[in-house]
């Protein structure tokens, strides 16, 4: 195709595309989060996140930043991301706590327990599965996967049946009590399409979270995958998470 043919087709296509746009189609990511940067091409990206468990200090700044950035209700029943603390005892017994349920108060260290031989923090969020069970079950297609690999919810279309919340193996979804629709982590889609980092990644003081693009050759996430042994949560469910953990204990579900 030469330039002239191309331009002719563009001229012919534009009005037609205008007509098509008037039909109610499936939700587009653009409508949900505002227009991305002009030159943004979703087909050139496939987003994921790396989490280095060894680096997380459990400060909860990611949780606060997420709640502030995305208008997640403050109440301790609604989280797009949260931190779990694992305490492993000498006899192998592990206790787990969510340390994000009271973000306003600085988390106190648990009392010294000589039987505890090891502790670590695990940040959790939507795994942005490549094969998402939540998208599969949505009866009206309100939750969908974008071309660049992020699972979003169209709050104008969601009927609030909560099937997706049931289908998520990771407890990453909740029903937003204000909008009465399903809600979850978007990887801060409104930010990443403008070339910014998700809020949780931006504020993490230890760089425990690495946001990146699996299609980018020199991307930090690609490097993260190359230099670390990677595991994902609940791999047996075949959801193909795109949140990749380094130094993750097998105990974590």
């Amino acid at each position, binding site marked *: 195709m030469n330039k002239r043919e191309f331009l002719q087709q563009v001229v012919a296509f534009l009005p037609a595309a205008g007509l098509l746009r008037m039909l109610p189609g499936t939700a587009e990511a653009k409508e949900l989060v505002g227009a991305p940067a002009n030159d943004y091409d979703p087909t050139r990206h496939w987003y994921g996140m790396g989490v280095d468990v060894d680096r997380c200090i459990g400060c909860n700044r990611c949780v606060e930043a997420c709640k502030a950035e995305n208008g997640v209700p403050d109440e301790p029943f609604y989280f797009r991301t949260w931190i779990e603390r694992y305490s492993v005892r000498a006899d192998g017994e592990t206790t787990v706590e969510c340390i994000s*349920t009271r973000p306003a108060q600085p988390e106190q260290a648990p009392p010294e327990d000589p039987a505890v031989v090891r502790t670590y923090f695990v940040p959790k969020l939507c795994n942005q599965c490549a094969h998402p069970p939540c*998208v599969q079950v949505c009866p009206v297609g309100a939750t969908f996967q974008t071309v660049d690999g992020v699972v979003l919810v169209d709050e104008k279309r969601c*009927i609030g049946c909560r099937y997706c919340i049931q289908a998520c193996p990771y*407890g990453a979804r909740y029903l937003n009590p204000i909008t009465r629709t399903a809600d979850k982590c978007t990887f801060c889609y409104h930010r990443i399409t403008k070339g910014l980092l998700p809020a949780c990644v931006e504020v993490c003081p230890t760089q425990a979270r690495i946001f990146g693009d699996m299609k980018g050759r020199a991307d930090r996430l690609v490097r993260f995958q190359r230099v670390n042994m990677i595991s994902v949560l609940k791999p047996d469910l075949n959801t193909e998470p795109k949140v990749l953990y380094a130094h993750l204990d097998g105990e974590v579900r």
Partner: protein
Amino acid sequence: MSGAIPESLLEQLGHQLSQVVGFIYPNEVETQWAILIVVYPYLTGIVAGAFILASLVKVFNVVEVQPIYRLALLTALAFMLVAGMPLQLHLGHPERAYEIFFTPQPTSAMAMFGFVYLWYLLGILLIEIWFEYRQQLVLMAQKSRGLMKGIYGALSLFSKDLSPEALAFDHRASKLITIIGIPSAFLLHGYVGFIFGSVKANPWWGSVLMPIVFLMSAIVSGIAMVMFLYILLSLVRNEKLDMRCLDKIGLFLLVAIIVDFALEALDYIHRLYQSEESIGILSELVSSRLFTSLVVVQLLLGMLLPLLILVLVRSVRFNEELRKLLYFTSSLLILLGIFSMRWNVVIGGQLYSKSFRGLMAYKMEITGIESLMTALALLALPFLILTVLFLLLPPRWMERNAPTAAH
């Protein structure tokens, strides 16, 4: 939409949070599918079960059950009309429910339910009832006056033909529809089971047996409901029961319970023997949070006790009055047991964390939309509808007014 979070919701969640044992994901405090979603498969199951009982007469020519044929059909209709309501009320945005019909997502197990429901209601149940009652409706339209004449005329779709050919056609049509209706009834409730059984994230639900277990328990509850209503109506109207019919229903009920029991037992044995990752938390769930509703109510009171009673009735020669009382008692126990089974599936599946490390609690609201009151109203509504249906379409009218019209 904007505004604050309802105070009652926060209170409920605060209470549920205080009851958590072990570790749960923080978003799991809220019980996403509550009492109304317990009511929904209960109602749908009764529809499917009652229809299958009715089909015994039409398709399998079980003549003994003829006296309850119309009762079973009307029962199915009354419960069917209410079956969709708990779903509708449960939605966060009920006003968008039409989207399921206009923009369904083909990969969603839930999306097709609307169509299955409509097919069953409009394609099977209403047409079957219309053919069954057409002759009576025409006669009633002829006999009544004023408004009622109009109503019966409209209900008969203004048909007037009472020729033997027309009546024979009614008969054939209703038989054909029943034949299509049996797989449709299986589909209706097996489908409800699939909505739960296909959730791989939740091992309490995710079982290939779930649709079949739902179906068998549906048949049990439908037969029990018709039996209960049949005995109740004979008491209310002070009429003599056809004991041959009642004994036959009792036999079907017994067989259905045995199959249901076997399937559920297989499910539990299979889980215990496979002993997968979730078995620890599921055992804890059954022995603590679900002990009363599962072991005591569902298994002992709702299944084994009525099973024992029905076996006794068949093996010992009790007199009619005692048999009636025993049937009545076991039908009530079974209806309670199946409700409990729906509760244990729906609520039970949300009382343990998907991290397999902790248990949640569910505190039922007394008033409000998702509440005990709404559930009771929805459970009572089918009986109200049934009363209206009985007044409008008396099941025995033909016997009294046109004895020649029997099949």
